[in-house]
């Protein structure tokens, strides 16, 4: 069974079941023990950092934040299948992928607070600012993938959007252009089943979001987004396929966010039942993968504790670095509008110079 063949509605591509047993050995990605441990390391790290970020937001030490707890397999499994030279267009929730792709954590925190330096990605870090306009990242990803194709670079552009985002015109336009030009792009739809309070059934009558790929004539695949190995496997095949010049793919990861939509006042108890939340807690990607690794003697309690400490230290260090970063100034902002400032802005800058 090929991971990139269009799937039947409502079937998940799965490698591990919720107990961490391998149910589909043919899809098992070819990963070393060390790579498997790294996946777990990143997921635990991200879970801790998410919990810290939520607290820090409540304390007013971070600004805009969209929780990711529950989506670790979807985010980390997919990013891990890309190479450093591949270019990432994240949405506002996809901070973990951006960080694991090279965005320094203190800059992610500055982005959260609303500081320009947050989006000043270091040279060689192939990431762009998280996209707030839902869908814009899709058409832009196609443009960047076309750039790679025109230059005959073996690079892939990849991007993320949520279930609600698949209703946007730009979502369709982007995947359709990508198909027409056969560019090296991978579009990941993270279906966490709610767009703020609106359930996916209110977005579309389509049985799966992966099937939307059919409208663009590109392969679509639906995976269990709580299964890091399934996500990695699907993403790896799509990335390889793109790199080989075979065109774009759409991957739907079926997942769940344990927290609110963002920390800006959303209350999930208004639209989600306790039963539904409990059902998805049982599918926790960390529990499942931990079981799998422990059975192979690849993960111990000591490993877990070490990563937790490491994550807490990294968050504290990043916060300290963000706190120490120089404040923005209005002349500084004006200077960053154009390569060469036009006369009108030069005049306005002078007003703030004193």
């Amino acid at each position, binding site marked *: 069974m090929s991971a990139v063949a269009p799937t039947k509605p409502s079937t998940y591509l799965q490698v591990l079941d919720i107990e961490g047993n391998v149910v589909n050995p043919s899809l098992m990605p070819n990963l070393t023990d060390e790579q498997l441990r790294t996946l777990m390391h990143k997921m635990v790290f991200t879970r801790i950092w998410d919990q810290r970020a939520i607290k820090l937001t409540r304390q007013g030490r971070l600004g805009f934040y969209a929780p990711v707890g529950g989506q670790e397999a979807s985010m980390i499994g997919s990013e891990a299948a890309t190479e450093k030279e591949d270019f990432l267009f994240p949405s506002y929730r996809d901070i973990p992928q951006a960080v694991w792709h090279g965005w320094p954590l203190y800059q992610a925190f500055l982005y959260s607070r609303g500081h320009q330096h947050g989006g000043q990605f270091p040279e060689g870090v192939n990431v762009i600012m998280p996209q707030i306009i839902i869908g814009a990242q899709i*058409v*832009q990803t196609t*443009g960047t993938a076309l*750039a790679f194709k025109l230059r005959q670079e073996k690079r892939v552009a990849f991007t993320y959007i949520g279930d609600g985002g698949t209703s946007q015109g730009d979502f369709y336009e982007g995947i*359709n*252009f990508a198909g027409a030009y056969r560019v090296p792009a991978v579009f990941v739809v993270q279906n966490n089943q709610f767009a703020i309070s609106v359930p996916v059934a209110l977005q579309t009558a389509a049985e799966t979001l992966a099937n939307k790929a059919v409208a663009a004539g590109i392969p679509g695949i639906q995976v269990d987004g709580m299964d890091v190995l399934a996500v990695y496997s699907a993403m790896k095949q799509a990335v390889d396929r793109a790199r080989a010049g075979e065109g774009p793919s759409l991957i739907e990861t079926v997942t769940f966010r344990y927290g609110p939509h963002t920390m800006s006042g959303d209350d999930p108890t208004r639209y989600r039942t306790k039963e539904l939340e409990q059902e998805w807690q049982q599918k926790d990607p960390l529990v499942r993968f931990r079981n799998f690794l422990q059975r192979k003697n690849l993960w111990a309690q000591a490993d877990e504790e070490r990563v937790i400490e490491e994550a807490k230290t990294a968050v504290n260090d990043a916060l300290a670095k963000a706190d120490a970063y120089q404040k923005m100034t209005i002349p500084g902002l004006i200077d*960053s509008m154009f*390569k060469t400032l*036009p006369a009108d802005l030069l005049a306005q800058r002078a007003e703030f110079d004193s």
Partner: protein
Amino acid sequence: MAQLTMIQAITNALDLELARDERVLLFGEDVGQSGGVFRATDGLQKKHGVHRVFDTPLAESGIAGLATGLAVQGFRPIAEIQFFGFVFEAMDEIAGQAARMRYRSGGRYSCPIVYRAPFGGGVKTPELHADSLEGILAQTPGIKVVVPSNPYDAKGLLISAIRDDDPVFFLEHMKLYRSFRQEVPDEAYTVPIGQAKVVREGKDVTLVTYGAMVHTAEKAAEEWAKTRGIQTEIIDLRTIRPIDIETIVNSVKKTHRAVVLQEAQRTAGVAAEVVAQINEQAIYYLEAPVLRIAPPDTVYPFAMIEDEWLPTPKRVLSGLEKVFSL
């Protein structure tokens, strides 16, 4: 030197820049094999190849988004929007994305994109082809907006736009595409963005305008000089964002009267901004308020009444008359 129409001057500028810089790409609906609905890109795909000049699916946001994605990887895209009225489809990618790219990334990424779009009235187009929507773009920080009124400026400004390291919207008035010819140098040259031009010198009143209205203004000024002996100084803005206020203020200091003429509706366009700038910088030189001459604030008219809706030389004259009778 050759006698070129504005559309030939545009094609020539595109051709020269495609040849000069391999990062320049040209794309849009029907711009490739067909050479564009107005033939602005005629022969360019054949000469520069399908990887440099290519057709796109019919979706303006997709086109503009493609430009953004190419630009952040170092290409210099020229994206055509078939008619300016279709810009609404692409507004997020232009105003919400490309115009903000340098700022939001602190200079890490930039969008050296030129968006080309035909617009303008007087040729009886169907709905949403002729609308003057330049005011919307002129209110967007991060983008420059250029509106040439003749072949010479069109070539020089387009070359400047392509070489600019930030997004430029380049608006081509349909009525001016082939309405007259002008001497245009064969080689590449630039006309600076952000610089207006005094196209007729006069001492009695300043008439600030742009696009096809430059020619309407000239007709009115001619008539005015003949019948009344009043000398009108006409300023062609050429760039409507940023506005060359220095040239305007210098003229107003000389004439002490000013009128702004535009094809866009009264509260659209950039006339109000010009008036405000004159008020801020030259009010003590004014003998009368600065007036606007513009079409009424209706939706762009049905083709059959277009000629009455658009400012005519006669309406310009009565506008000028007013600043002398106040």
